Each structure stands twice: as structure tokens, then as C-alpha cells.
């Protein structure tokens, strides 16, 4: 199964790099937010695959913390944008 | 110390046990202490919200049944978005419709917004009182939305039986 997992991880990482285009050049703040969210999801799946590639269960905890942090960070940035944290 | 505090504390303890993953007495004691501490620190958050989040055992069961039915719709929604995105001509004609709902309370409205978002071609954007603004990817989805399938499902979950 290991070569398959490596292939899946590489595909997901290429997808994350393509998302970087939208995160850098997005016309508004919100496009950047959803691009960062999608990068976070891809990297989360890659982290869980790494737990099986390297046979270390610690990566599952890292993925857990990563998912929670991703959620909290994006909600905080969105809240800030909605209530006028960004100059218009 | 009320029922809600006990409930939240036990939920946090289960979360701690899932994260740490052993049942050593010291670990258990630590979990009980931390759960009590977090419950005490967040009692301001729990004061107003608790009454809104009530859902009986029957409601929870029906929620899972609805989720299982929704899986087919989620699959359809994803294939639809995939077809539209991979088509070189990009065949979309977006429209924003207003949808008036008869549901009361916070939890039913949140669930309705989630169901609308997971259905094919529609995305719940904003709430203004009873009116939801829904963004549709094409006009045909707006007609489908007006058949109120999602609202019927939420009404079925929250059917009163007290």
C-alpha cells in the first residue's frame, strides 16, 4: 500500500500548491480565506497518510490539533473581516 | 452545578479520553480535574445557549437517518459541481433567491442552512430574521429549492412529542 499512499500524498500536495495561486492573487480577502482553508484540508489528509507511511501514531494527534487550529483561525479572521478589522 | 454543567463536563471527559487514550487512574483524575476547570471557565457561554440546543434522543436518531438519506444528495451535488467545473464552457448562471422559512429557534435554522448547502447547486448565504438568502448555481436549482425538501426534513427531525 505504501507506493499508493505516496502517490496520493504527492497529488494532494500539488493541489495545495495550485491553491497558493488563489491565496496570493485572490481579488478579495475572502478568496484568500477559502484558499487557505482548502490548503489546510489537503495538508490534513497528507498528515494522516504520513502517520501510516512512517508508522507513528503521533501524527494523528498532530492532525487533530491541525484541524482544530485551522477552524479557529479561519473563524477568527472571518469575524475580524466582518466587523471591520480590515480598512475599507 | 446543574444538569447542563454535568453534561458538558462528561462530554469534555470523553473527549480527553479519546485524545490521550489510556485508562490509568492518574490520567482519569487529571481528566476529571481539567473537565471541571473548563466547564467552570465557560459557564458564561453555556448560560444563554443551552435552552436553544435541546434535542431529544428521538431527534438525534432521526438526525442520523436524515444524514444517511442526505449522502445520496451530497454525491449528486459533488458530481454536478464537477461536471460544471470540468466543462470548458463553464455553464453557470448564478442567481440569488430569498427563501422564507417557518422554523423557529436557533438549532433548526442552523440545520436548515446546512441541509440547503449540502443539496445540489444551492448555498445558504445569510439570515435576516425568517428569510434566508440562497445562492443558486443555475435557475433549475432555485425551482428545486422551492419544493422545500430540506425544510420538510428538518421539521421531521424536530417533530414535537412531549
Amino acid at each position, binding site marked *: *500500500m505504501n507506493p*499508493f499512499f505516496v502517490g*496520493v500524498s504527492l*497529488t*494532494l500536495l500539488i*493541489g495545495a500548491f*495550485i*491553491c497558493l*495561486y*488563489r491565496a496570493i492573487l485572490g481579488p*478579495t480577502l*475572502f*478568496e484568500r*480565506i*477559502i*484558499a487557505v*482553508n*482548502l490548503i489546510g*484540508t*489537503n495538508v*490534513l*489528509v497528507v498528515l*494522516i*497518510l504520513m502517520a*501510516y507511511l512512517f508508522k507513528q501514531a503521533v501524527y*494523528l494527534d498532530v*492532525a*487533530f490539533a491541525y*484541524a482544530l487550529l*485551522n*477552524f479557529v483561525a*479561519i*473563524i477568527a479572521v*472571518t*469575524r475580524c*473581516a*466582518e466587523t471591520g478589522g480590515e480598512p475599507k | 452545578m446543574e444538569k447542563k454543567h454535568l453534561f458538558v463536563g462528561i462530554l469534555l471527559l470523553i473527549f480527553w479520553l*479519546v485524545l490521550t*487514550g489510556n485508562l490509568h487512574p492518574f490520567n482519569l483524575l487529571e481528566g476529571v480535574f481539567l473537565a471541571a476547570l473548563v466547564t467552570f471557565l465557560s459557564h458564561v457561554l453555556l448560560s444563554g445557549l443551552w435552552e436553544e440546543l435541546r434535542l431529544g434522543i428521538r431527534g438525534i436518531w432521526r438526525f442520523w437517518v436524515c444524514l444517511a438519506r442526505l449522502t445520496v444528495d*451530497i454525491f449528486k451535488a*459533488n458530481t454536478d*459541481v*464537477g461536471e460544471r*467545473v470540468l466543462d470548458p464552457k*463553464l455553464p*453557470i*448562471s*448564478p442567481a*440569488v433567491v430569498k427563501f422564507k422559512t417557518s422554523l423557529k429557534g436557533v438549532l433548526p435554522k442552523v440545520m436548515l442552512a*446546512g441541509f440547503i*448547502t*449540502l443539496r445540489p447547486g444551492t*448555498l*445558504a*448565504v*445569510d*439570515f435576516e430574521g425568517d428569510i434566508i*438568502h440562497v*445562492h443558486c*448555481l443555475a435557475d433549475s436549482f432555485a425551482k428545486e429549492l422551492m419544493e422545500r425538501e430540506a425544510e420538510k426534513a428538518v421539521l421531521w427531525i424536530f417533530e414535537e412529542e412531549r
Partner: protein
Amino acid sequence: MIEVVTNSITVVFLSLGVFFLSIGVIGIIRLPDIYSRLHASTKCDIFGAGLALLGLVVYEGVSFNALKLLVITGLMLTSGLVIGHAVARAARRGGLTPWQEDREELIRLEKEKLLEKFMEEK
């Protein structure tokens, strides 16, 4: 024997999940405005990541790590929905108007065609 079955289920689920996640990425690049990009990102995010994680749960079998993976899956589902709604609401309240197909242009073209037909018949 059982391993062959679970491994093939894992391969199918992971491939489908990666496919839908890639559709989300392509949608974010190609679609014209923030709301239609949210269509692609929210739906494909939830479904793709959910399928991939469920495939790994099948690969893991019945164990403590599988429970942890299931909790992560539930977290992904709820957080994806909440993020989609929060971004859409902030975008609308920030005054972003949705992209519209140029319908007046279409109607004008249609009228010209009708006029030409009419002249030819005359």
C-alpha cells in the same frame, strides 16, 4: 483474503476522495466569483476529505486509532459547513455582489437574430 477486500475498499475511497478534492482546487481557480467558488470549495472539501478519511478507517480496522480518525472526520464535516456559512455571510455583509451572466447582451443578440429572420422573410 479479508485484507484484499479492505485494501481495495481503501484504494477506491481514497481515489474518489482525492478526485473530489482536486475538483475543489480546480473550481477555486476557474469559477468567476466568491459565491460560486464557495460552492466548489465547501461541497468538495467536505465530501472529498470525508471519503478519504473513511477509507483510512477501513484500512485501520477496529482499533483506538480508528475511533480517533472518526472523531477527526466529524470535526471536518461540521467545521467545513460552519466555515462556508461564515465566509458567505461576511462576504455579503462586506458588500460583494454576486457575478451575473450578462443577460442584456444575450437578449440583444436574440433580438438581432429575430430581426434578420424577419427581414429575410420580407
